[in-house]
């Protein structure tokens, strides 16, 4: 399942789509922290280039399946305004083996942060909000960085 949604991410329903017969299911969830760079964060806003982000999720799933033979990978990402503690992203991998499921989750979240066109704006108590500038690697550089 690949999903970009402005609704609360329901982790139980995501897990119900995992192939439990596989033996191992690993999940990573990113949640909104109450601080960033020493400042108190009150809310976040995610903006997404949705069709390209979904395509990137499919690409990441293909990479993960090729590298670790996991049988299932789902990626769900929020957009819009999020409160502290809410889930911004959930990655779930199902595999016959635990190491592969966990490695697939770690790889997928790294790749999302490198190639998925999604932007985070942080809001503080007293400011307008600032777009966080994260990864700007060229696609070719990515290929090297992530060739592990």
């Amino acid at each position, binding site marked *: 399942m690949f999903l970009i949604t402005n609704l609360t991410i329901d982790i139980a329903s995501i897990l119900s789509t995992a192939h439990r017969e596989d033996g191992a299911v690993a999940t990573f969830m*990113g949640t909104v922290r109450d601080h960033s760079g020493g400042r108190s964060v009150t809310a976040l806003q*995610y*903006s*997404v*280039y949705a*069709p*390209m*982000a979904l*395509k990137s999720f499919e690409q990441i799933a293909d990479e993960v399946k090729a590298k670790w033979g996991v049988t299932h990978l789902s990626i769900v*990402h929020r957009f819009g305004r999020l409160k502290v503690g809410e889930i*911004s*992203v959930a990655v779930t991998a199902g595999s016959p083996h635990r190491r592969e499921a966990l490695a697939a989750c770690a790889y997928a*979240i790294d790749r*999302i*942060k*490198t*190639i*998925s*066109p*999604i*932007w*985070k*704006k942080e809001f503080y108590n007293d400011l307008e909000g600032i*777009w*966080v*500038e*994260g*990864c*700007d690697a*060229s*696609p*070719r550089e990515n290929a090297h960085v992530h060739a592990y």
Partner: protein
Amino acid sequence: MIVHVKLFASARERAGADQLELDLPINADLFELRKILNDQYPCFREMTGRWAVNLEFVPESTRVGAVDEIAWIPPISGG
């Protein structure tokens, strides 16, 4: 030829628009597009980012046409 450049996040806010319309020479590449963008919208001169064409990251040497979906991707921060 007329092309449209989709904007997001900080670039969208600085330009004050979801997308920009530009008139490019036939067979122009993204390097030429960037020069025209910088001339017409000075706020772009300082911006870092990547190009995406038809939902894929591409190098600046890529030639674009009127039917291509062109997007300017500022540094991403999802996850």
